[in-house]
């Protein structure tokens, strides 16, 4: 999933590098090949219909882990070679620079649409991915992976951004983002050093279209974040850091992106819970997509179908800690996982706003950097 930091850290530098890379490589690519062909409007099924020897992935670490990927290699004889990324910007930069060198990529839901519009990915032949029938509709029909050519992505895993808190230290019912502004917990609150923190603040302010905020609305968010700043222990950057902050008792309430933070805290005896606030929560999902130049659409489809199998989704959850995308997987994972992701109560999903491409993303990012620096 996406976790771009907005600080002037190595991450920030990489994000800039991603943009720089995109510009530079796009120019180079243009110079190299002159006439660009128009993006495909239908799946190109002309490639080989037998499993390729090798499938080259550009993805998040853990998304092709041997614990679940070896079954694929055993069945089809296809070796998966993965190159890891640390952010979506890196993925875009790598993709524009190395067109044709990857068969599958795993962008987050706020990046997929740009890739489709830029013609960097190709439409999928869904007939080759029968397990898609059991995929939650919210992924299958997500606008972020739909385009002129049909469906462009199959989900890998997902999660939402809930409030997480220690029930022993935070009294009463927690059902609102306002808990992150509660003076009672001053000095014991942490929020994500990510664009998501802006979304969460907007939700609290009652702004409905958090991905298309006006300048005025962003100003309100800024004010609210400034009000929160003195109450924070710190802005967390990685899931590992978040877990450590709770474990050491430095924080009692914050937000997370799902994953292993909650199970690890509970395994260590902490009475931690995650809740979707009444104002709603944002959610992320990472998709598998096929770069436009790849010749291995068929093998990529085999992989996507394999990943959508209910039992494989359970294995993915076991390794990554993220939520399964297949309806039937709910019956195969532990009750804790079902509870964490509200898999038994699908109406909660209606309160989730899946990340989208943000047109004035830079203004959002500048806002957060500004709040942190002031």
């Amino acid at each position, binding site marked *: 999933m996406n976790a771009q930091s907005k600080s002037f850290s190595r991450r920030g530098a990489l994000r800039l590098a991603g943009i720089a890379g995109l510009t530079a490589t796009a120019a180079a690519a243009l110079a190299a090949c002159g006439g660009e062909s128009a993006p495909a409007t239908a799946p190109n099924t002309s490639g080989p219909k037998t499993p390729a020897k090798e499938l080259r992935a550009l993805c998040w670490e853990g998304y092709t882990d041997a614990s679940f990927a070896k079954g694929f290699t055993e069945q089809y004889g296809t070796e998966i070679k993965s*190159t890891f990324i640390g952010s979506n910007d890196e993925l875009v930069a790598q993709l524009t*620079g190395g067109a044709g060198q990857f068969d599958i990529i795993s962008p987050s839901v706020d990046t997929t649409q740009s890739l489709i519009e830029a013609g960097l990915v190709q439409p999928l032949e869904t007939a080759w991915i029968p397990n898609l029938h059991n995929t939650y509709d919210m992924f299958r029909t997500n606008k972020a992976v739909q385009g002129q050519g049909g469906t462009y992505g199959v989900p890998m895993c997902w999660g939402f951004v809930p409030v997480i808190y220690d029930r022993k230290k935070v009294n009463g019912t927690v059902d609102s983002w306002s808990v992150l502004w509660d003076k009672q917990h001053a000095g014991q609150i942490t929020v994500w050093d990510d664009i998501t923190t802006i979304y969460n603040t907007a939700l609290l302010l009652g702004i409905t279209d958090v991905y298309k905020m006006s300048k005025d609305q962003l100003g309100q968010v800024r004010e609210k974040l400034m009000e929160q700043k003195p109450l924070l222990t710190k802005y967390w950057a990685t899931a590992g850091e978040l877990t450590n902050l709770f474990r050491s008792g430095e924080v009692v309430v914050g937000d997370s992106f799902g994953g292993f933070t909650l199970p690890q805290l509970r395994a260590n005896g902490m009475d931690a819970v995650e809740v979707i606030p009444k104002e709603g929560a944002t959610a992320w999902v990472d998709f598998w997509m096929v770069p436009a130049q790849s010749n291995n659409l068929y093998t990529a489809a085999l992989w996507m179908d394999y990943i959508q199998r209910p039992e494989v989704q359970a294995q993915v959850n076991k390794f990554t800690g993220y939520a399964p995308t297949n309806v039937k997987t709910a019956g195969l994972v532990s009750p804790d996982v079902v509870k964490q992701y509200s898999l038994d109560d699908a109406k909660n999903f209606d309160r989730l706003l899946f990340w989208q491409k943000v047109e004035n993303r830079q203004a959002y990012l500048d806002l957060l950097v500004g709040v942190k620096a002031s």
Partner: protein
Amino acid sequence: MTRRGGTSTTLVGLLAVLVYAFLYFPMIVVAIFAFATNTTQTLPIEGFTFRWFLDAIGDDVLVTAFRNSVLVALAAVTLSTVLGVPAAILVDRYRFPGKVLFQKFILLPLVLPGVVTGVAFQSFFLLIGLPRSLGLVALAHGTALTSTVLTTVYARLLRSDPAMEEASMDLGMNRLQTFWHVTLPGIRTSVIAAALLTFTLSFDEIPVTIFITGDGGNTLPMVLWSTLRRESRPEYVAFTVVVLLVGVLVVTLASKVLDDRPPVPIAEAGG
């Protein structure tokens, strides 16, 4: 020794301890957690175990990445030494048209941020149609780090006497023999120092690597970087400690081989 001297010595000693503590304390903390049974890196320590080290050594992703990093670093050292040492001799001993320009250009990678170098390499390899791979990473590291070798070796050459080489040739040796028997022994320690420095720089490099690797060629820093996002795993902490120990060992060995004169930066030495 006067009383005053004694006080200042104590003060300097104390300051040194503080500086070293500041530098090494984070590493010591990491080392302690590598042996702790805790699954997260938080106090209190619940107990001690070697389990994480066994897990780390059994982790294919980590071990492969470590191997990749070592291979890239070795190739980069070889390439940068083969290019950098002759370049240093060229700059020090010969005059040629465009020398000043050559000196400035070859030092560019030292000045430029890694991401710029990375993007430049990516565009270049794309233009000439080379597929991204670990081999390209080695090539890029080797080329960019040539400047490091050049600076280090050049600093030493400045202090060696060209008359020795003239004498060697007066006595009937050809240029190659002179290089092998006279020049190289004179700069030997600086070449070793440059090689070690190059190895370290290549080993933990991220920005250039990210832009040109592919084909499953993940280096160790890339794996650590992309995993941290998700969780901080104890076996990764343990693996870091192993790498740290190897690093300390190499540096200790190297300092035995090398003399203690500090290298002169090229800018200061003038060119």
